[in-house]
């Protein structure tokens, strides 16, 4: 996750009053529970076996390789092959799960389904119904209509981070972080005891925090304000990140992107 996204989540936002609405149409799914469905377990086992095989190949390839560039190249090849296998194995399963979630949400008149991890209280748990549908024979049937308009909005933080000035700030911060990290590593190697090492670490963290406050925080504030403005105009109750959304919701990413440009 980028620095902007990280900081955005960490902000305690102020809630404007007066936009209350009915929230009985919010559902959630426990994705961890879904992963224990036989088809997912089987795919996981296949992936684990493939990874074990790939690990052995990787270890053989790396044996005796001392050059950092070659190590990185081999490592990248390894990651690519593993990612491709993941896509092959899980892609069809995810599509099926998506249809099942949409079908259940539609039958329960839910306008939005989110990840259980962000639900602290309330909402409708549709995990059991989705599990049942996925474990049953045949493919789940897609709903005949789109989800109803939802008072829960979402943004694709990753897409917002590609706005040139935000991206430039992020890239700049990452370069700064890499340089600081290198310096800190050198100092850590020279440190004579734990106290010195602690001091190096604290200094490193403080330097990064300062820099983040100076260069990233103002952009985070602007982004949050822009999201809140768009949300108010559209009468939304709250806005979450796309990564926490599973079904439905109101996408305001493009409105926010336009506002920030």
């Amino acid at each position, binding site marked *: 996750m980028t620095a902007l996204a990280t900081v955005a989540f960490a902000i305690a936002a102020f809630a404007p009053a007066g936009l209350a609405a009915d929230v009985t149409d919010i559902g959630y799914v426990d994705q961890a529970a879904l992963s224990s469905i036989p088809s997912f377990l089987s795919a996981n086992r296949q992936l684990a076996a493939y990874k074990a095989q790939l690990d052995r190949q990787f270890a053989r390839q790396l044996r005796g390789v001392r050059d*950092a560039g070659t190590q990185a190249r081999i490592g990248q090849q390894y990651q690519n092959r593993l990612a491709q296998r993941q896509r092959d194995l899980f892609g069809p399963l995810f599509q099926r799960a998506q249809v099942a979630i949409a079908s259940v949400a539609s039958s329960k008149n839910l306008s939005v389904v989110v990840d*259980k991890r*962000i639900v602290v*209280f309330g909402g409708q748990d549709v995990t059991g119904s989705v599990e049942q549908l996925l474990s049953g024979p045949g493919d789940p049937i897609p709903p005949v209509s789109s989800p109803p308009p939802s008072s829960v909005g979402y943004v694709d933080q990753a897409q917002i981070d590609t706005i040139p000035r935000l991206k430039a700030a992020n890239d700049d911060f990452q370069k700064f972080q890499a340089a600081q990290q290198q310096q800190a590593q050198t100092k850590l190697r020279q440190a004579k005891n734990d106290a010195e*090492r602690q001091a190096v670490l604290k200094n490193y963290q403080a330097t990064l925090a300062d820099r983040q406050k100076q260069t990233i925080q103002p952009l985070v504030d602007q982004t949050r304000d822009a999201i809140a403005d768009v949300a108010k105009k559209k009468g939304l109750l709250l806005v979450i990140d796309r990564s926490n959304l599973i079904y439905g919701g109101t996408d305001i990413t493009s409105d926010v992107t336009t506002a920030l440009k």
Partner: protein
Amino acid sequence: MTSPPRSNKGGAASLWVLAFGLAACSHGTTSSEVTATPGPDNGKVGYVNMDALVKVHPLYPQLAHLDDDVAALELRSVGPQIARSGADIARQEAQLQRELDEAADRTKRALGDKQQEYAKQEQAAIAAALGAAGSQNGSGSIAASVAAQARVQAQRVTAASQANVDTYRRQLVDQERTAAATLDRALGERAAREYRARADELARKESDYALSLASADAAERLSLRTKLSNLALDDATRAEVTKALAALDRKEADAVGAMRNRDQATLAAFQVTLHARVRRELAQQIGSLQKRTVAKINVRQQQAQSQIVGQVGLPPTGGVAVPPGVGPGMRQKLETLHARFQHDFDRDASQTVAQFQRTRAELTRRFHALAGADAADRSGAERQIDALQKQRGDLYGEMVAQINREVKVIAQKRGIGVVVSNVVAPAGGVDLTSEAQKDIESLHE
């Protein structure tokens, strides 16, 4: 016509989490248990800033400490940022190899000089002996022939022996690295098994305890629920009974939470002990491996030394090429002379070779220390980070579960239907963060 679900784009990224068990443990909210009482915010959606709440939780200092430990380890080692990186090791190994090559060159030069010196002395002695016997013919060529043969043989033997020892050393080092990696994996797996067993045992005890608490309060809970089911109950009594039921739930949750906190501390201490033990065992066993490897190399070097000393220098057998016409007495005298110079040279050369072997042994020891330190550092740090992150995840899960319980009580009190965390922007929702903060801070007391 069937229109595709609008969710596909938004949900795909989230569902990818499924595959690899990254969808962390859920926070234990079950809507079916919730009975929202009428309140000023009835039907609204609430939200909390989970990061802010985690920061006021009594266990936050432990979490921050774990974060610091992970950050320190990540900064110090592992992966592409490893402090003693592959490139560092390669540089240090190259330096050791340079020192070894220089020592070998010095030894070769010293042996060559000594050889020439002894050949000259022997040549002079042979010439003197032949001169004294009145045979000037061929004395110079005999000595020169002896010296030339010795030089060629010495170079061949020294080069072959050194190549053999170097190959052998490389093979042993590779074997040692493989053995160290296997050992590291085995120790790590054993420690993980022990940790899991202890964690399972504690979790079982927690479940038993929770069950016993629930059983103890079963009668009271049933009585309260029976009262609530009485439709004729007035609002004040209903509120009072609901409050008593909530207090009962909270008492049990707090007792189990306290036990979990203690167990968490026990597990943390156990983790530290396991880490220390694995690192100690790894260091010991890698040390033993290195000693065995160095001993094997030393044996091979001794063999090479004997080979060099036995063959380098003047031809050890077959005597001197004595020209025709030399009598048996002179032949005997020349052979004695040769044997004496051979012996003197062997003794002198063996000292030089021994000195070289000592240098080589020291460089080999340093080389192995370097390889062993690398393996131990890298694997130890990676394992520590994994374990700390697991520990951190468990602790965070416990804290969030407790926070969720507090937020649930607040939401029920205010009649809020749904509460979520991690909102990007709140818009019209009700912020419960500061109220929850107060309740969580009271857990310190």
